[in-house]
């Protein structure tokens, strides 16, 4: 196969998105908040649509702020429903995100003529169009694919976030009581993590859609979690799996002629399957043969 410039751009963008999602997802699953990730990835939709309507542009900072705000609001509503209203936690999640997502879909349908967003894009993004959606400076210089820059900025910010708050994230994930005893507020760490998840969701939204972000948030870290019990190694494995998911996913989609984001989710599932087989069977065989 010859080197395909467009394929390279798509794979790189996919890998960058997989990296930022995987980094945040690691902490989500350690905190047993995987389904909150699901909720946020659905709930940012009305924020995106409203910001889109008001700012009339897709690439603006307004869209990111709108989505970020909605993501945090969703977290707060879930929290409010389960602690103050005393609705059981899983139902709080289910009620909140289906409601917000429904609002988003209704808004999209109502303003279908005014915004360049459709239900398909919401569901699985348009990563295949990345190479033709270019960032062009006012003087006409072509800087390259716009979404690639968006993903790059996202990755850099996520890495800074994780490095800056690594200790806090780690302690609050493993021992919330100890964390609060040494003066780390679990609530604030939680909210900032949710804020980053919302931001990452929206920044990846154009490329992979709202629902498939979840696959990248949860599946690679879950796979890594089965392979190691060391946090740093888990992060490393997550990153490696994320990059390969993007690479293989692209070619699967290419041969089947379907959505790249969908293929990435499928490929991540195959990695998970291998990890499950490894952790359920191979380990036992290794132990058995040693004994």
């Amino acid at each position, binding site marked *: 196969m010859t080197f395909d410039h467009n394929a390279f751009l798509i794979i790189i963008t996919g890998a960058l998105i997989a990296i930022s999602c995987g980094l945040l997802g690691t902490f989500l*699953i350690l905190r*047993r*908040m*995987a*389904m909150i*990730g*699901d909720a946020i990835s659905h709930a940012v939709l009305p924020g995106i649509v409203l910001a889109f309507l008001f700012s009339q542009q897709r690439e603006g900072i307004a869209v990111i702020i709108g989505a970020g705000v909605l993501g945090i609001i969703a977290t707060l509503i879930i929290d409010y*429903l389960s602690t*103050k*209203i*005393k*609705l*059981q936690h*899983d*139902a709080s*999640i*289910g*009620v909140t995100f*289906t*409601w917000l*997502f*429904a*609002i988003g*879909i*209704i808004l999209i*349908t109502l303003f*279908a003529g005014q915004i360049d967003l459709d*239900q398909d894009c919401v*569901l*699985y993004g348009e990563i295949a169009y990345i190479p033709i959606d270019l960032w062009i400076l006012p003087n006409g210089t072509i800087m390259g694919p716009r979404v690639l820059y968006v993903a790059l900025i996202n990755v850099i910010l996520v890495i800074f976030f994780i490095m800056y708050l690594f200790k806090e994230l780690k302690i609050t994930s493993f021992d919330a009581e100890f964390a609060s005893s040494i003066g780390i507020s679990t609530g604030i760490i939680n909210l900032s993590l949710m804020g980053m998840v919302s931001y990452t969701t929206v920044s990846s939204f154009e490329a992979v*859609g709202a*629902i*498939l972000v*979840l*696959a990248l*948030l*949860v*599946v690679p870290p*879950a796979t890594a*979690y*089965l392979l190691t019990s060391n946090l740093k190694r888990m992060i490393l494995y997550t990153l490696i799996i994320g990059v390969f998911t993007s690479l293989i996913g692209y070619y*699967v*989609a290419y041969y*089947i*002629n*379907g*959505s790249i*984001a*969908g*293929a*990435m*989710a*499928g490929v*991540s*599932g195959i990695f*998970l399957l291998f990890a*499950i087989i490894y*952790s*359920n069977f191979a380990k036992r065989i290794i132990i058995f043969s040693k004994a």
Partner: protein
Amino acid sequence: MEEFIYFFSFKDPNIVLVVAGISLLSISAAMVGTFTFLDKKALVGDAISHAVLPGVCMAFMFAGNKNPYWIVLGAFTTGAISTYCISYISTTTKLKEDTVIAAVLSIFFGVGILLLTQLQQTGNAALSGLDHFLFGNAIAIVWEDLIVYGFIASFVIIILLVFYKEFKLIIFNAHFAESVGMPVRILRFVFNSLLVLAVVTGIQAIGVVLMAALLITPAAAARFWTNKLHVMLLLAVTFALFSGVAGAYISYVIPKMPTGPWVVMVISFLAFISFFFAKKKGMVSRWYSQRKYQKKIHMDHILKTLFLHWEKKQQGMTQGELINQFQGKASTTRQYINHLINKDHLSATEHYITLTPSGFTEAKRIVRLHRLWEVYLSKYLNLAPDHVHDMAEKMEHLLTPDLEAQLEASLDYPATDPHQSTIPRDHDV
């Protein structure tokens, strides 16, 4: 308005079809959802509803059209596999259940999207309706769909009613069910199959993305009105039915509107009303009764303070002195003093606030309960006298006359509390 009358007069056989279909599926989803909600498995329903998509697409690839028999078969197959995956992975690996649900949901949905986009590329003409499986289109229900989906929904409803007792027992006390020899594993399998079937009935009218709401939200709303399972089922069904028909009506009036989101909007609205305004369990009524309780406590404290002051000095307190006893609560204290004057528990003369005879009796009762409880704690729990005050502070508001009589009897009518203060009784002066 004309459309409204036309729709609900059911003159149009197509509308009857649509309403019948969506009613049956709403009923079965709400019933199954109530059980999954109580079993704390609400989000499994979400995973299943996403996981039927690959099955739908494969059925379409296989049959080449939207034949409901194949669609149902495909959807049921992948839905059932996903349930199996969730329980297998979460019982055999160290992954937590919510992680597994999220992973299974997104992987299956991703594969579904991959197949769906592949189908769209082939440009099959009959495909135009396949998108409707994402967000639902109740108006597109035709006779054949109604037969298939309606039959399944009725089947789910009937089986649930037949095994009502068994499912109830499994959800509330699985260990007991096992110990009386119920085939718990088989029943769970049957129930999981019903859950998948209930989801499958919704794919045409509600869509796979939002079908979860029809399982979770009616049950969540109903939970706030009752503690009884059969009432909860009835309420959940009513809520779901109302929102299902409302959603169908909206997508009839605005043809471009997908049905699913509107059904979800209506049911969520009903749920939020329930969360806030339900009798007893709703936010507002809980807040109100909490406030009422706090008010009672504060008024008890005002009466008690006056009584204790009287015990020492045989006279009333000035309003300023009394308010100073409650630092930072001056305005509420003033308000409650007026309230107590209105209730004829207090009287305000020029200088002093004093207890009226009825207020005196009430204050005496509170102090008596406090001191009796202190005696009880030190006598039966052997607590040191300096440890009993705080607990008695709480109990003085809670003890009923019945308990008071029992306490008096079992403590043999003590004259003093552990701090040697007299326990005041109604017959002494």
